């Protein structure tokens, strides 16, 4: 805990910040202290509270309790304006730039330079070009449109926009490398170090532990809404001599860097309980085979197969291409290359309707938007995919039969309340998820893909859903669980695929796999891909990314 003297000396002090959302204590007396002229890392698993505390600092969320000090002076009212006034700047993960604006316009958006006749475009262009060249070391014509820039260049424009007024004292980078390739990351790191050396303090939020240990002076670890420790990384930072080459900097957690182990221990800090069902996996025939699948932007050359009775885990942090892969398999996104067979028969998936007909179903990650029609009843949602089973040939809905079918599956999954007329919007997250599962159970499909199946589901319903997943596999289906909750992956899956930056970089049986080893695999950043070749960081990789996506 920091004392008052430290608070006065620190560039940023966030004291005992608490923030609750309905049903979730997102922050529980969390603190964060950043020294002047320091690059301070912030890590933690999903849901640990990293982004919540950043949003509190940005004035987007109002904290329930706690205080914030910037440069030794307290901030009474935290709004986006007051924070900006005190020199705190944010480089958001998503590229919040307008594609049709020029570089100069983007840099000066909402802080335009005025001349005698309205905007002084020439001055803005000159200033933005000079800033990009001198401070960030990038030669970019101020007239270039944002959409014609590479992703890395856009990141630099974002930084220029935050810093151009010269008032910045503290800059928060939120997952800045999620969309960058290895070379661009090194350039970015160079720029961050340069900023620090001009007296600016940095908060660096990232999932990639190898990046944290490379660039940060200290790192604070969050877990369950609290700060559980701050580690001094002094020795690991700013390697002497020439800038490290791609491969030198690409050391992974698995083969060194004891500090990463320390961080992981703090991040995880919990045991897998008996939340997960006991199961003896009995894998049968191959039911789903994916080969050479690419979508042309988010992932490439993905190969794997699932067998009946098997639960396959798929994991990877934000930007790994995991979500895009799931969507592509289900026909929501277009396939560029590669093929997919179900039960030995090749399938062309152009729409979810085709996937469902082929026996492949998806429990989507965004339950409230994609999983359920919220304003329809439990019964209607359960029957949604199997309406033709409860109708006459001409499509007359036989209500009694429909009711019987939905009741049967709702009962099997113990959906509560037990009233098929209840509007789904008013169910708890766990019960909503059961409704989605009940719908697919009724289809008797062969492959079940579950994307983040327990997001927003309370602990009790969680174990029920795990039991159901196990039941699906026992019943002879092939199951894929895609999740960024690694304990969940280890607890429920038989085998796990790890995606990093659009590729599957590891495949492991989960028995005997330690959690910290899995964390290391998913957070290995450029390391794991360095030896996979730099091809995926080529123009194709950049071109496919959309601004703001």
């Amino acid at each position, binding site marked *: 805990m920091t004392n008052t003297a430290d608070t006065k000396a620190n560039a940023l002090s966030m004291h005992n910040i608490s923030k609750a*959302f*309905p*049903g979730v204590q997102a922050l529980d007396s969390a603190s964060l202290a950043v020294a002047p002229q320091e690059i301070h890392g912030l890590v933690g698993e999903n849901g640990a509270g990293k982004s919540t505390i950043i949003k509190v600092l940005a004035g987007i969320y109002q904290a329930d309790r706690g205080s914030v000090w910037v440069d030794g002076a307290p901030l009474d009212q935290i709004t986006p304006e007051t924070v900006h006034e005190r020199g705190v700047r944010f480089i958001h993960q998503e590229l919040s730039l307008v594609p049709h604006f020029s570089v100069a316009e983007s840099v000066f958006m909402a802080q335009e330079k005025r001349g005698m006749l309205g905007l002084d475009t020439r001055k803005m262009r000159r200033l933005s070009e000079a800033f990009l060249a001198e401070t960030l070391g990038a030669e970019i014509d101020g007239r270039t449109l944002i959409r014609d820039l590479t992703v890395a260049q856009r990141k630099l424009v974002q930084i220029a926009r935050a810093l151009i007024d010269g008032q910045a004292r503290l800059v928060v980078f939120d997952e800045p490398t999620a969309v960058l390739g290895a070379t661009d990351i090194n350039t970015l790191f160079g720029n961050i170090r340069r900023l620090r050396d001009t007296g600016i303090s940095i908060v660096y939020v990232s999932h990639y532990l190898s990046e944290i240990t490379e660039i940060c002076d200290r790192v604070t670890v969050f877990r369950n809404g609290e700060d559980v420790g701050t580690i001094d990384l002094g020795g690991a930072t700013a390697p002497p001599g020439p800038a490290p080459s791609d491969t030198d900097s690409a050391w992974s957690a698995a083969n060194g860097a004891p500090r990463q182990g320390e961080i992981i221990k703090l991040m995880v800090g919990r045991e897998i309980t008996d939340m997960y069902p006991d199961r003896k996996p009995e894998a049968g025939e191959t039911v789903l085979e994916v080969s050479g699948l690419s979508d042309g932007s988010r992932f490439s050359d993905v190969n794997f197969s699932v067998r009946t009775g098997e639960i396959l885990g798929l994991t990877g942090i934000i930007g790994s291409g995991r979500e895009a892969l799931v969507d592509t398999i*289900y026909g*929501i996104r277009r396939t560029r290359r590669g093929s997919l067979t179900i039960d030995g028969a090749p399938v062309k998936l152009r*729409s*979810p*309707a085709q*996937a*469902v*007909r082929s026996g492949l*179903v*998806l429990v*989507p990650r965004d339950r409230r*938007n*994609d*999983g*359920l*029609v*919220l*304003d*329809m009843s439990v019964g*209607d949602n359960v*029957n*949604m*995919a199997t*309406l*033709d089973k*409860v*109708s006459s040939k*001409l*499509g*007359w*809905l036989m209500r009694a039969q429909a009711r019987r079918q939905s009741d049967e599956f709702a009962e099997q999954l113990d959906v509560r309340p037990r009233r098929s007329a209840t*509007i789904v*919007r*008013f169910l708890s997250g766990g019960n909503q998820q059961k409704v989605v599962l009940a*719908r697919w159970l009724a*289809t008797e499909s062969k492959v079940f893909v579950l994307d983040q199946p327990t997001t927003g589901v309370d602990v009790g319903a969680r174990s029920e859903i795990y039991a159901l997943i196990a039941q699906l596999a026992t019943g002879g289906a092939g199951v894929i669980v895609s999740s960024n909750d690694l304990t969940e992956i280890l607890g429920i899956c038989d085998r796990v695929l790890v995606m990093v930056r659009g590729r599957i970089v590891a495949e492991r049986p989960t028995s005997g796999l330690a959690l910290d080893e899995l964390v290391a695999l998913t957070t290995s950043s450029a390391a794991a891909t360095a030896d996979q070749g730099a091809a995926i960081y080529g123009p194709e990789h950049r071109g496919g990314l959309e601004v703001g996506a």
Partner: protein
Amino acid sequence: MSRRAPALALLSRYGFLAVFLGFFIFFATRSDAFLNTSNLVNILEGNAILLVAALGMTLVVASGGIDLSIGIAIDFGGWLAIVAMMDHDVAWPLAIVVGIAVGASVGVFNSFLVVWLGVSPFLATLGTFFIGGSIQQIYTSGGGQVPFREMPEGYQKLATGDTLGIPNEIIVGAIALMLFYVFLERSIHGKRIHAIGLQRSAASVAGINVRGYLWVAFIVASATASVGGIIATAGLRQFTPLAGFSYLLDAIAAVFIGASMHPQQRPNVPGTLVGVLFLGMVSNGLNLMGLDFNFRDALEGLILVGAIALAVSQRRVLGRSGASA
């Protein structure tokens, strides 16, 4: 749950029916002629075309869209049926088929714009509206009427005849009403269309063929509207270019008045019927009382806005207490 919510829900659901009843009683006490059977039959008969058009609109709105070109389908249906009989000696039953087919083709064009090209339904059907209006003016020398005095009797009877003592217009309206009720409210296709209209991405992920149903919705809506146009030409023994437009806004109003009565504010067939009857009753009543007919539009506007505001406020109160963040 807020204590205000149930009261508001009741008011929203049945408030409009109360207003409906209030007007009914008002007209009945103010005008001796209003409650006459023949007058009530007149109201039904006079609004059969609006009902048919509004049913088609209900389908499109239920699927999450809107059809501003419904007047074009009405015009084209009646126009081409007349042209077929007049210039090509087509038998009248076949001419009806021609009219409906031409009407349906307006829907095909809309679907092409919406489903294939991804234009929003509002803009796509607005485009069709302008194009269709222009075509009518070009081929009728700027909107001149197309009279057809020698219209076959069978065709005329669509609008002017009776069957078992019931005016044929009412029968056509009733058949359309029943078909739409079964399709939209009692069949699995209706369920799917409602799901698409409520939450398109969820419907798609559930394996519903969203594009296919959007095609169906636009085509059926236009084909149905063209039936209205055929009846209109049969009644007047002539085609009046651009006359279909007068039904568009009433049809939209009827659909949304009907939707405001649904617990989830969904467009629905019974609600649309109530909406159509209300609009018909008000204009009839004002007429009988010798009041300015133009009051009707103001009343229609007030009722529509009032009903929707009530429905929205109910949703807000319910949403605050029932739904999560």
